[in-house]
C-alpha cells in the first residue's frame, strides 16, 4: 500500500516492493552486528534514534530526568531478494535500558534471531522473554566463540527453557552461509508459527 500521491482504487499502479524485517537480538558483544554484516549486501549501516521518553516499566531509567534525551544507535543491513522484495536486518540495541526502542523495531517484524554465547547464556534471557511475550517467532543461534564450550542443542534448550517448537542452531556469525542458515530457520519457523494459505491456493 502506498500513501501520498498514489492512485486509489481502479487503476493498476505498478506493484510496490514488499519490505520485511528480521531482528537480531542478544546480549552486548554477542556478535549481532557481525551476523548482520555477514549476510548484508551493504556494509551494516548505523542510524540513530533520539530518545525522549522515559518511565516505561522496563526502562532502567529510575532517577533520570523524565525528559532527558539521548540517542541510541541501531545497526542494520539489507538483502535484496529481488527488485520487489527486500529483507532488512536490524540489530537491536544491546543495553536493556533501550528496550522501549524495541517496540518500534519489533512492530511488524517477521521474526527474530536471538544470538547466544554459551559463556553468558543469561544475557539472552531478556530477548527471549521479550519475543515470547509478543509471540514473535524466533530462532536461538548459539554463536561459536573460540574457547567457549560446546553444548548439544537440547542442553541449551533446557537451560533457556525454550518451547519445543523454537529452533536452536549453532552458528558462526562471521560466516555468510552460517548466518544465512540462521535466517532461513527464522523464516521457516515464522511460516510454521502462523499458518497461512498455501502458496497458489
Amino acid at each position, binding site marked *: 500500500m502506498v500513501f501520498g500521491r498514489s492512485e486509489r482504487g481502479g487503476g493498476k499502479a505498478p506493484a510496490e516492493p514488499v519490505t*520485511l524485517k528480521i531482528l537480531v537480538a542478544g546480549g552486548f558483544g554477542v556478535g549481532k552486528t557481525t551476523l548482520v554484516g555477514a549476510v548484508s549486501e551493504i556494509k551494516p549501516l548505523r542510524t540513530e534514534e533520539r530518545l525522549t521518553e522515559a518511565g516505561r516499566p522496563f526502562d532502567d531509567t529510575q532517577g533520570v530526568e523524565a525528559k532527558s534525551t539521548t540517542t541510541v544507535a541501531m545497526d542494520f543491513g539489507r538483502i535484496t531478494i529481488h527488485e520487489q522484495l527486500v529483507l532488512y536486518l536490524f540489530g537491536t540495541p544491546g543495553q536493556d535500558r533501550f528496550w522501549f526502542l524495541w517496540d518500534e523495531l519489533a512492530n511488524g517484524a517477521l521474526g527474530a534471531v536471538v544470538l547466544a554465547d554459551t559463556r553468558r547464556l543469561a544475557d539472552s534471557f531478556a530477548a527471549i522473554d521479550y519475543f515470547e511475550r509478543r509471540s514473535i517467532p524466533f530462532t536461538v543461534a548459539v554463536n561459536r566463540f573460540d574457547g567457549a564450550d560446546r553444548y548439544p542443542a537440547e542442553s541449551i534448550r533446557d537451560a533457556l527453557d525454550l518451547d519445543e517448537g523454537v529452533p536452536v542452531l549453532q552458528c558462526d556469525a562471521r560466516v555468510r552461509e552460517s548466518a544465512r542458515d540462521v535466517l532461513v530457520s527464522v*523464516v521457516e519457523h515464522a511460516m510454521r508459527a502462523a499458518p497461512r494459505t498455501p502458496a*497458489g491456493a
Partner: protein
Amino acid sequence: MTDHWFDDAAGPVVRPYAMTRGRTRSSAPEAQLDLIALVIADGPDPGPKDPDGSVAEDKLLADHALVPEHLDIVRLCRASTLSVAELAAELDLPVGVVRVLIGDLLEAGLVRVTRPVPPAELPDESILREVINGLRAL
C-alpha cells in the same frame, strides 16, 4: 541582543532539529513512516537527470519552503528506492528528524511512501517461500 547569543562557546548553531524548525513529530501519521517504509521520489520531475538541476532545485526550495536536506532526500530517492532507516543513515541524521522531513515532502507531493505489510497480513506463503529461496541462493 541576539548578537550576543552565539559565540564560539555556544557550539554549532545549527542542530538537527533546526532543520525541522523544532518539530519532533512528522505531520504525516507515524504509521506511514515505518523504519522499513520505502520512500519513492514522485515529484514533478521524475526523470533521473535534471537538465537544469540547480534552477529547478532553487524553485523547489522557494515553492515549498524546503531546506537543502529535503532535496538531499529527493535526490537519494531518485537514484534508488531507499527505506526510512537507510535515508537516516545516508544523511547521518536521527530517524526522528528524517521522518519530519519526509512528512514535509509527502505534503509537497514530492515523494510517496510505501506501507510495509505486517507479516500477518501477507496474502499467502509465497512471499516467505521467495525469501527462503532468495536466502538459500546467497
